[in-house]
């Protein structure tokens, strides 16, 4: 892995959050990424009169792959936005901890259902956006190339995003999220807009990068099969509460059509649909 340490612009949400403490910490990208575990205590989110999350308690060990499933409107996307700081909880608290339980700063990233690439930047420049502002150009280019190689898109580095297929664009978005080696990666239905075969390819890619980089992953999806295929652990969210918390005891990578997984998938679906 190339590169030396440099001043990171770990401005995560906006300059408001970019206090001096943050900005002054040099980030050594040669060091292994530090996965950030989650500790949620009584987390609540209210939009007007509507209580979307009702006092969630949840511990996610660093490096786990957690999937959150549930019907639309169950609060799963809201929860994800809270985890990456896009919204603030109206009650309770969210803490980020390392393997030993010490508090850490999560370098968290999110991948949305739409790739949200800047159409006026080349693919490589889009990936370099993931490093934040003020990164030396040569460094940015090198890191972007490395991340693109990681999603098997090296040959597209100089193209405009409009030249890519939907699946390729989503891979660029993934590379952009991963280029800064996040400790926490949030995935908001990232494969929802892809066709079935592209989806399977992307699922394998997500599994590969997660195993290689070791970040904590939180995937929100309505596709129970996908959750069971990708995650260590699946939770079902129902009206702002956790109604089922299920470990998936299978080694990665998993085979599509594994009967044990199919059985778990059935249980999850029954819970979601209220048949259990």
């Amino acid at each position, binding site marked *: 892995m190339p590169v030396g340490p440099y001043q990171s*612009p*770990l*401005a*995560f*949400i*906006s*300059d408001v959050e*970019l206090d001096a403490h943050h900005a002054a910490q040099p980030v050594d990208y040669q060091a292994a990424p530090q996965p950030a575990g989650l500790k949620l205590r009584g987390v609540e989110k209210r939009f007007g009169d509507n209580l979307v999350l009702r006092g969630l308690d949840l511990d996610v060990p660093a490096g786990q792959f957690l999937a959150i499933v549930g019907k639309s409107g169950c609060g799963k996307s809201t929860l994800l936005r809270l985890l*990456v700081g*896009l919204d603030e909880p109206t009650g309770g608290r969210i803490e980020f901890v390392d393997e030993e339980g010490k508090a850490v700063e999560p370098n968290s*990233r*999110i991948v*949305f259902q*739409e790739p*949200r690439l*800047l*159409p*006026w*930047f080349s693919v490589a420049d889009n990936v370099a*956006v*993931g490093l*934040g*502002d003020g990164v030396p150009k040569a460094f940015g280019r090198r890191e972007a190339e490395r991340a693109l190689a990681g999603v098997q898109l090296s040959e597209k580095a100089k193209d*405009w995003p*409009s030249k890519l297929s939907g699946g390729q664009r989503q891979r660029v978005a993934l590379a*952009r999220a991963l280029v800064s080696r996040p400790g926490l990666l949030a995935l908001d239905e990232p494969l929802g807009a892809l066709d079935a075969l592209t989806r399977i390819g992307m699922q394998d890619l997500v599994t590969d990068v997660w195993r290689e980089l070791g970040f904590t992953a939180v995937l929100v999806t309505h596709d129970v099969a996908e959750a069971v295929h990708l995650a260590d652990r699946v939770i079902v969210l129902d009206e702002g509460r956790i109604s089922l918390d299920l470990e998936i005891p299978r080694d990665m990578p998993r085979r599509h059509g594994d009967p044990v997984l199919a059985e778990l998938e059935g249980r999850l679906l029954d819970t979601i649909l209220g048949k259990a």
Partner: protein
Amino acid sequence: MTAVDTFSEGRSLRRIREDRTSSTAIGYSDPPKGSAEKAARANDGKPLRPRSVSGVALLPFLLPVTLVILWQAGSSFGFISDRIMPSPVAVVAAFWERLLSGELARDVGVSGARALSGLLIGGSIGFLLGIANGVSKLSEQLTDTTLQMLRTIPHLAMIPLVILWFGIGEEAKLFLTSLGVLFPIYLNTYHGVKNVDRDLIEMGRIYGMSGWSLFRKVIFPGALPSIFVGLRYALGIMWLTLIVSESIAANSGIGYMANTAREFMMTDVVVLALVIYAVLGKLADVIARTLERAALSWNPAYQR
């Protein structure tokens, strides 16, 4: 007249572009079935080949060239009086004479400088206001309503007031031109900034962009296609305003040249002025289009 053409072209740019592509499709590459069969028969059954590229490129000039030939013939055979309309040859002669004497270069230079400075001043104000009002709620609330109100006043209706304020000097022309180009640039910049994809802005913030970097990387490029529409629209208004203000009062410039010529019944020079306006208007549009294509090469709509 010329400027009015540019003016309306600016307004319906998108439609014209569509018309062009569709007419190309019907006219050249995909002739209607019946005519294709007839043509094939006339061709002794040989397969139809598409017209050569140069033929297609020259076709748009067929009509104007024919008209000029007819016009020249009409003048030469005495059907058209010199007092009503000079012959094309006379116009070319007038052009040559003024080119040699240096008057033409001076007049075109003066008019061009007026147009450009008006565009720069009015365009900058419109651009900055458009950006400010697109980005800042406070600025929008302070100025947008006022601007929308002023916009509805035809700027040429200000001429009497402008003459009272500035007399008939350069300031009056500069003021009118600036005022004319301000609004289309303002409206389109504002609209462009307002319509930048919110998801992209959110993405930018997540990745630590704020202030200047968010503007430079997301908002400005996102608004650019709309800003270019405003610019091309403004170019039309710029020439229109200049022509009108130069014909009111001036002692140099193309409008002055045309008005002096009118006093001496020199129709050839009057028509020459029209032609020059047409050429300048077209030139400005070509430059704007070239810039547009270069700046928006990422956009599939501008890729060739």
